């Protein structure tokens, strides 16, 4: 892959300040791989409801929990369900978005009512 011609790299270059542009280096990673920065992606998935276990010390290892999160993310957002960090999945992950969780849990601080 010639990174200079990769549309994802171009996207990341366009949005230098994007919080998630560093995820571009995780592209094509799959279960069993280890890449520095993978723990940040796990935090992303935790934040948006795909890894519901709180206060976990995340590693940079692409483990079963991350694969499950990727699968749920792809299913939930209508992406091809591959379980891998393919182009389309990474493109969606790096887009700016709403801060609300995608999956509804009964313990999220943003989902409380004012009773």
């Amino acid at each position: 892959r010639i990174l200079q011609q990769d549309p994802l790299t171009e996207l990341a270059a366009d949005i230098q300040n994007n919080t998630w542009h560093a995820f571009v280096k995780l592209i094509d990673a799959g279960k069993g791989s280890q890449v520095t920065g993978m723990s940040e992606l796990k935090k992303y998935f935790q934040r948006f409801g795909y890894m519901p276990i709180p206060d976990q010390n995340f590693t940079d290892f692409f483990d079963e929990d991350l694969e499950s999160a990727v699968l749920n993310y792809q299913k939930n957002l209508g992406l091809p369900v591959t379980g891998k960090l393919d182009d389309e999945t990474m493109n969606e992950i790096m887009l700016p978005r709403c801060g609300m969780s995608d999956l509804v849990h009964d313990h999220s601080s943003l989902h409380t009512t004012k009773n």
Partner: protein
Amino acid sequence: YAYFYGRPRWMKTSPMTLSYAFSPNSMIDYIDASEIRSVFQRAFARWSSAIPVNFTETEDYFTADIKIGFYSGDHGDGEPFDGVLGVLAHAFSPENGRFHLDAAEAWSVDFDEEGSKVAVDLESVATHEIGHVLGLAHSSVKDAVMYPSLSPRTKKRDLKLDDVEGVQALYGSNPNFKYTSSLEHDTSSSNRRRT
């Protein structure tokens, strides 16, 4: 469409009117206040056209049902904003009414005037967050307003059938609501995604 846990909704008596107000201290100054007010009027009107709920602006921020403001970083609700792009905004489920936008974004009401590559359409985000205020969670339908992501320099302002069906299941239908072709999904892009 989807709902928050417990399917909360506003429970005021019918005909329901919800008031909204802008924070007196937490606004952006590079877009004229009257333009911001117009953007939100149009965004509220879209939802109001589908359900029997009226929205009215009030000057009294502290008693308003819906409180709108622009905030940076940690602003006290446990969900700090993260600077340019990343998270754009968030809003709370009924009947909380807090509606927060990330002040760090290059908010735009007109892409012809706002040349930034990372400009974000304020009206699209406002329409999305009002959906949360009313009780809708994120949708899996890519063309729906309630889909979670929005590309820079992109507009997604019009409600789709998925949005309308979701909110009408919570509040009923506005008797004057009319089905229009703009409610239909972009089936060509949806099919491409499925393929």
